[in-house]
């Protein structure tokens, strides 16, 4: 396998289901932190769950960051678009 692949950064749109904390203050703080993220568009909150649209060049890293937010208990993926640019040729 070629040593490295250098792909140009590609924006990936994906949708997530976020499970939030049971207690209201923690949940509210988590929602505030989520809303402040520029890569995240939240949908309608239902109980402890909220759908979200993630637009990121590093979706895995973003999901890890989101899951690390206090009050976010679980991150699940529902939908993902593939980057429009093809993978670059190996260097």
């Amino acid at each position, binding site marked *: 396998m*070629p040593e490295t*692949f250098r792909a140009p950064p590609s924006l990936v*749109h994906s949708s997530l289901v976020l499970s939030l904390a049971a207690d209201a203050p923690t949940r509210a703080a988590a929602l505030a932190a989520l809303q402040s993220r520029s890569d995240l568009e939240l949908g309608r909150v239902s109980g402890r769950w909220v*759908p979200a649209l993630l637009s990121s060049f590093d979706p895995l890293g973003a999901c890890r960051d989101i899951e690390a937010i206090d009050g976010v208990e679980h991150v*699940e*993926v529902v*939908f993902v*678009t593939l980057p429009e640019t093809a*993978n*670059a040729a190996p260097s």
Partner: protein
Amino acid sequence: MLRREFLRHSALAAASAVVARRAAAAPSANVPAAPTGPVTTPDGVRWDKAPCRFCGTGCHVRVGVKDGRIVAIQGEPSADVNKGLLCMKGYHVGAILYGPDRLTVPQLRRNGRLEPIGWEEAIDLLARRVMANPAGFAVYGSGQWTIPEGYAMQKLMKAGLANNHLEPNARLCMASAVTGYLSVYGVDEPAGCYDDLDAADVVILWGNNPAEMHPVLFSRIIDRRTRGEAVTLIDLGTRRTRSTAYADRYLEFRPQSDLAIANGIAHLLLARGTWDRAFVDQHCHFRQDTDPVSLLGRPMTFEEYRAALAPYTPDRVAQLSGLAVADIEYLADLFGNRDLRICSLWCMGMNQHTRGTAINRLVHGIHLLSGHWGRPGDAPTSLTGQPSACGTVREVGTLCHALPGGLVVANAEHRAECEDLWNLPRGRINPTPGYHTVQLWEKFCTPTADGGDIHTVFVQVTNPGQSLPDLARTFQGKKGLEDKFLVVSDVYPTATTELADLVLPAAMWVEKNGIYGNSERRTQQWFKQVDPPGQARPDVWITLALARRLFELGHPGMRDRDGEFLFRFRDEAGREVPAWEWEHFYAINVDRALYEEYRPFTFHKHKHVAPYDELVRACGLRWPVVEQADGTFRETPFRFMEFSDPFVRRGAGVQFYHSVTKDDRALIWFNPYEPATEEPDADFPFWLCTGRVLEHWHTGSMTLRVPQLRAAMPNAYLEMHPADAAALGLRQGDVATLETRRGRLDLPVWLEGRAHPPRGTVFVPFFDPHLPINELTLGDYCPISKEPDYKKCAARVQRRAASRAAAPAGPVTVAAMPG
């Protein structure tokens, strides 16, 4: 609206629908109807269904295609398995088709270099190798084979060449689960299903990490807790993983001592009288091994069983395992409580084990002894790692001793039944099992003059050059053996293609029709949705073309009882179609034809798989699938249980109708604790454990081509306890030399990552072709299942390079490692 905008809206709508369903008072209601066929949305994206390409969970997805290319993936909302969800690997399943170095033409190695050749020449070359010595030909296949691919090769080898040297890579992952189920119930595969996770009060993880390896299944448990349900999660493991973070109790045990723990639980159940005497009296016998050990063992009385368990007192088990006495008693308390429903889950920790059959038997035995069996939520379940280790390997029987449908070559009645189904002359099928995986590769990598009687191996859909244990001995010995010939069919260059003499480009996933069978007996079908690149072709076509060429060259085994070619296909008008000719391959649905031919084999052991057309209409169906009086087909979520299984005798409640003892009873085994075949000592003081990571699928041949996954996890690492590292003068990012008696490897050290081994244990993932940890692993295997132990061997660690200036927080790259 631009396509991109439409997809963004679709994405959020899909997630919103999942949330709405969860938040509903009755989440099981309002499930979307299963897709009735491909759908094209206003943005011109064509959506069709498929099971995910990756793990044995078998999530169903919708694949969005536009202009001949996958543009989006969605979790299938109507799918029982994943209920609209994907996982982090499923996230990128569409992208795996588009690595820049896809194999696109057949290539033959000449003068050390792979050179393009045509398909006709490639098939002819392989066929002539086989004709020269059919008995010295072997096939190494895969739990990632589709069912038709595995069935075609099964038929070619066993019905055609009378050659049982057919083995799957699933020997390395599932064989101990198979022998466990066979020796306990008389038939393979879990009786329960994923619905057990929705009903269990307690879930015990026996050395597995589903938070990373089966995330969608793990999500079921998390989702129940989020709803406020009480689900106790116990993580019984040898190192803390991502699953541990969610566990109510983490019980860390010394490697190999799971055998003692299981016996300790059984000991206490008897000592306290909390075992389920009524269930055992009605449904079980006791069993012990013969000497030498064997799959079916010999009878044991209850008193003998009790006596054998006597030494496994809590104190003794604590001494062997490192668990506290209170923890052992806690586990026994759980199993002794019939008000609880307990689901045991396991995967490689129990299967890749030098006593893998034994530990599988013991965990089944705890459930049977305590009566935690026969109700939804009470289930001992081995999860599979590959998408069709169950459907293809275990059900089609692509193993050196097996025939389709759970039949075996050594049984004369089974052979006769298969010969009749295949319309073969009596005596065609070879009664002698072939070489199992480790033997097969040893024979191939041994000079012919020294008894290496396998001269040609054809590898399909797997990468043994990276995944076999003790690699230098079991694979790299092929170097320099000029008379040996390795053929590899794959989608990307791998460590295996690097040693191959002939490389064939294969179609992958939705570039071909396919059928998989997942961990819960669910058979799932998909149609081809995009074209493969270049001259890549489906593996099933390659096998048919090989069979036809052998027929043309006059191999007698390619003819059936009537002298006709083994593989015959007809269109709807009844006209013969030469599907082995590429231009005619898609003139009919070859998958459908082969699968419908295979289906009757599944009736023998009541594993009735659904008709193909039923699979087309569904997101999979769990066998046995039985036709009802009204002509519909009904699946079976729970096997051997009267409320669900149509083959259970009325009034029986629970009936193990394929029991070893032929009396509808399962077997509770005693197997002793035995030390690992290689344990740490003064020279090699660490336990080395290997395994997978969230981002990469097995040997990384697909996922390393996805830039986001590669960036997230670029290379392997040495995970160790910070105190052990400090004692060796190692810091985060330093390069250490890891050594076993089989090899050595320099690896970057990763401390306080997502998993945390205890002192005295190190972990290395096996996905990285540049850091092939299997050069260090142990080739010892379970004497019954022949499955190697990748989880335990002795190692030592030494500091190698100077420390780095900065200590990165995440996975450490090897980019700057010195030469």
